[in-house]
């Protein structure tokens, strides 16, 4: 089976949140609470254990005459549907001590709910703040990439529901290419601020949920340089080894002095 991926194209997203609901319906996840945030129309705030797809709303200056498809300025209202990135090198996957998190044959990073023990080490290992422990249930949850559906050859629920094909689902390399072509196409249409978010040059080595956005990805809470925490490990273990050695030496030395 080839590696599958999402390409979430913000220039086609109408912010309807169908993905968010379709995801919750299919995966039978509970609501997030009924808090009004005042952050434009975004009341679910971020992906987490009970929100696996999440639509972000970004407001920019408005000008009479200009719709969001105009290239003259950033769209006055931008939407982008966030999701687990299913990183090429995934922090959560590396960190999981139980083997609960696995890489499926189609590349998804999947938390096996029957194994996860809720150690929540994955929570602090995700550079995108995706995976989260459900405190009531005691286990960690995140987007499964609809692995149950994918196993049967079905598209993930969010991509299927998306009314405007803003969420494309398909082969990773094909979508990577498509994203580049789309940026070129937008260029040709006079939209010069479109970018593809796919951190290939960081230790994450690319993601399986690509995003096409207009403007700075940081407005959409996407980090410029996400790093997999394992990159820090070498330094850490070296330093731990030295510390252990020094500690052993110092102890021996201290007691050696007491030898009669």
């Amino acid at each position, binding site marked *: 089976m080839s590696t599958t991926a999402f390409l979430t194209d913000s220039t086609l997203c109408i912010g*309807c*949140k*169908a993905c*968010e*609901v*379709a995801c919750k*319906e*299919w995966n039978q996840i509970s609501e997030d609470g009924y808090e009004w945030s005042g952050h434009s129309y975004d009341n679910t705030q971020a992906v987490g254990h009970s929100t696996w797809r999440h639509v972000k709303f970004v407001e920019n200056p408005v000008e009479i005459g200009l719709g969001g498809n105009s290239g003259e300025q950033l769209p006055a209202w931008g939407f982008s549907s966030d999701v687990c990135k299913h990183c090429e090198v995934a922090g959560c*996957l*590396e960190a*999981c001590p139980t*083997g609960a*998190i*696995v*890489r499926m*044959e189609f590349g998804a990073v*999947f938390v*096996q709910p*029957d*194994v996860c023990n809720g150690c929540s080490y994955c929570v602090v290992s995700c550079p995108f703040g995706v995976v989260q422990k459900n405190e009531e249930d005691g286990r960690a949850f995140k987007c499964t990439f609809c*692995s*149950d*559906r994918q*196993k*049967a050859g*079905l598209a993930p*629920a969010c991509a*299927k*529901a*998306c*009314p405007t094909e803003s969420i494309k689902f398909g082969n990773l390399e094909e979508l990577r290419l498509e994203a580049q072509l789309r940026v070129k196409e937008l260029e040709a249409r006079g939209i010069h601020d479109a970018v593809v978010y796919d951190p290939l040059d960081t230790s994450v080595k690319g993601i399986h949920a690509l995003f096409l956005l207009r403007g700075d990805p940081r407005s959409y809470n996407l980090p410029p340089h996400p790093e997999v925490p394992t990159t820090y490990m070498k330094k850490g273990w070296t330093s731990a080894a030295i510390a252990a050695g020094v500690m052993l030496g110092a102890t021996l030395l201290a007691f050696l002095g007491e030898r009669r």
Partner: protein
Amino acid sequence: MLPKLLSRWPLVRQIQTGGDGTGPEVMTERTHTLGPRTNGAQVARSVCPYCGVGCGQLIFHKDNKLVSIEGDPESPISRGRLCPKGADSFELLTHPHRELKVKYRRPFSTDWEDLDLEVAMDMIADRVWKSREKSFVETQDGQSLMQTKAIGHLGGATLDNEENYLIKKLFTGGLGMVCVSNQARI
């Protein structure tokens, strides 16, 4: 026995395969056999009950129970897609706040009480009959009127065409009710 037991320990499989603990060697039976819960379900072809676009829906059901509601990819209108409301149709039909019992409120009462459905139907028929008897006008100025204005109907525009047909036929054609209205104006 023991080797078999040991082979169920992912660590052993990990050592055998040389895996790094993220692949098939650590997957459980559940993960290996994962599949959509719509597997083996029956499918009814349906239409979204929310707005007027009329998106196609597939209703998956098993043993007289709903399993899932999804867009119908064959629909030339919606091509399998749904909006957030349409995508939430399953919850619409299964949420815990849906009423499943008749509720009756006596005049001047401060609370609901239970009522049997058939009894309720009889009582409603009695009320309709009494109000109609009292208010029905057969003629006015020697011209046929055949009308009652004492009973009204207000229908939602999510009622089926067949339902509307029966309502109009019985209420207007049979009972002579003229105060029959609907969300649909234009």
